[in-house]
């Protein structure tokens, strides 16, 4: 027990130490606010603002889209709405999709883009990322909804509330704090994924101006920079990874606060 906890903590600490030690020295304000200038990838002036903005756009877009698609699906999976068998089959499919490697989503997203006549763009990336995080979104929200105590639903039904009223006015509010965690999980997976955006977003030194522009992302920024032989650029790769980590950490903190705020109303 203690050994396994120690191991987990050691791995986490190891990753943090390596990234902070290697990345912190290269991290400065200009790196956060500037886009790459000429010769950036050879160790000259510039920053990764393009990748930061790009990743945020991609992850927020995909999280929003998959939430809007996923929430009704998560509710529809409850036994009030569909039969147990169909729900089980759907859950199983979602679990398989959850385990599918993200490069598959990248390739699949690429096929969809070609079909729609899209080029490598922010929109294409959002579509691929949405496919990737939708199963995570649905399954985690759905688990939370299923945890709603039967007695609470009974209380609502016993007052003559309909299925829809119970869902929207009671279960949704009860599940809200937990749902925030599910959304965060999906966001974290989305912002950190490199393979699904590899074919679908392209890569650019500029900040995107429309959904149809190609867009840079932090995971790919890390990937390209760490692959160069120049030590300064490699250091910047670690700094980029650090930025990515900090974003995920901030989102995590915000979601905890929100979740705590909403859970004032909840009786377990």
């Amino acid at each position, binding site marked *: 027990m203690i050994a396994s906890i120690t191991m987990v903590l050691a791995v986490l600490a190891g990753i943090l130490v390596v990234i902070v030690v290697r990345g912190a020295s290269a991290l400065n304000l200009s790196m956060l606010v500037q886009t790459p200038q000429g010769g950036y990838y050879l160790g000259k002036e510039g920053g990764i603002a393009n990748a930061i903005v790009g990743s945020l756009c991609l992850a927020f877009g995909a999280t929003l889209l998959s939430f809007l698609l996923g929430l009704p699906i998560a509710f529809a999976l409850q036994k009030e709405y569909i039969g147990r068998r169909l729900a089980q089959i759907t859950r199983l499919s979602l679990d398989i999709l959850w385990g599918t490697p993200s490069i598959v989503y990248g390739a699949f997203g690429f096929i969809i883009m070609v079909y729609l006549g899209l080029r490598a763009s922010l929109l294409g990336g959002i579509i691929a990322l949405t496919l990737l995080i939708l199963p995570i979104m649905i399954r985690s929200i759905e688990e939370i909804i299923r945890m709603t105590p039967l007695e609470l639903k009974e*209380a609502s039904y016993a007052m*003559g509330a309909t299925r829809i009223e119970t869902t929207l*006015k009671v279960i949704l509010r009860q599940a809200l704090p937990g749902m925030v965690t599910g959304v965060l999980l999906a966001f974290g997976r989305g912002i950190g994924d490199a393979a699904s955006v590899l074919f679908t977003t392209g890569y650019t030194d500029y900040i995107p101006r429309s959904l149809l522009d190609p867009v840079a992302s932090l995971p790919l920024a890390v990937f390209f920079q760490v692959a160069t032989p120049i030590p300064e650029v490699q250091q910047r790769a670690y700094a980029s990874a650090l930025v990515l980590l900090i974003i995920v950490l901030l989102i995590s903190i915000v979601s905890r606060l929100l979740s705590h705020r909403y859970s004032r109303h909840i009786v377990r």
Partner: protein
Amino acid sequence: MPHISLSNLRVAYGNQKVLQDITVDIPNNQITVIIGPSGCGKTTLLKTLNRLVDLYDEIRVEGEVRIDGADIYDPKADLLTLRKKVGFLSQKPYPLPMSIHDNITFGPRIHRMNRKKLLDQIRKLEKHIPIDSLCPNGRQEETRASKTHEMAYLVEYYLRLAGLWEEVRERLHAPAAQLSIGQQQRLALARALAVQPEVILADEPTSALDPVSAQLIEKQLKTLKDHYTIVVVTHILRQARRIADYVIFLYLGELVEHGPAEQFFSSPRDERTRAYISGEIS
């Protein structure tokens, strides 16, 4: 004529029979207590009366449950009207995830009560139980003013009716989850009353509560019985003796004996009833 009348009611979960051939009339404006050992079908019987059993998988209900003459298991019966007429208190109170105030207004809101309906309801209520009779120290001016705000008035009225008003009047907009469990149960009572039921079902309503809160709930139920038909499930024999006017005794899914409380406890007819009352079986 009694509100509720059961004939040959049989309930089964899958292949397991839970209730067999229950035939009984539940008297109006009294507290009917359903007693019996755990797992003998008390709660199931209670939940067939407002069709909450519909929520369970593989449940089969046969026979008739008539409320005001209409069979509630008739396919044409209106489920929402039934549940509006029959209020329900569960074993452990679950406040809805919203404020105290909104817990009370939830019922009127889902039933889309407009100003006129609310005013009608208030007039009817006042005829039966005037709000002044619910105030131990006489009513204060501020609350009198609230009669112009129908919802606020209703909230106060039902909270008083459930004996909770004085404890929450300062924090109506606080989350209901912050109340103590005893207060939550009285809130659940107020919330159920706000739908204007004629019948109140209570499933071991005091089993999760401390003795003081339990006593309060019992007291409220006794106050309410003049205006509502009340059915309470309990496995506490002493509680049954305290509150029952009429007793239904179930044993292993079978209706063993029923009758007025006095007769039931003093001269039981069935051997099993005698054994249960004397504590030989439980």
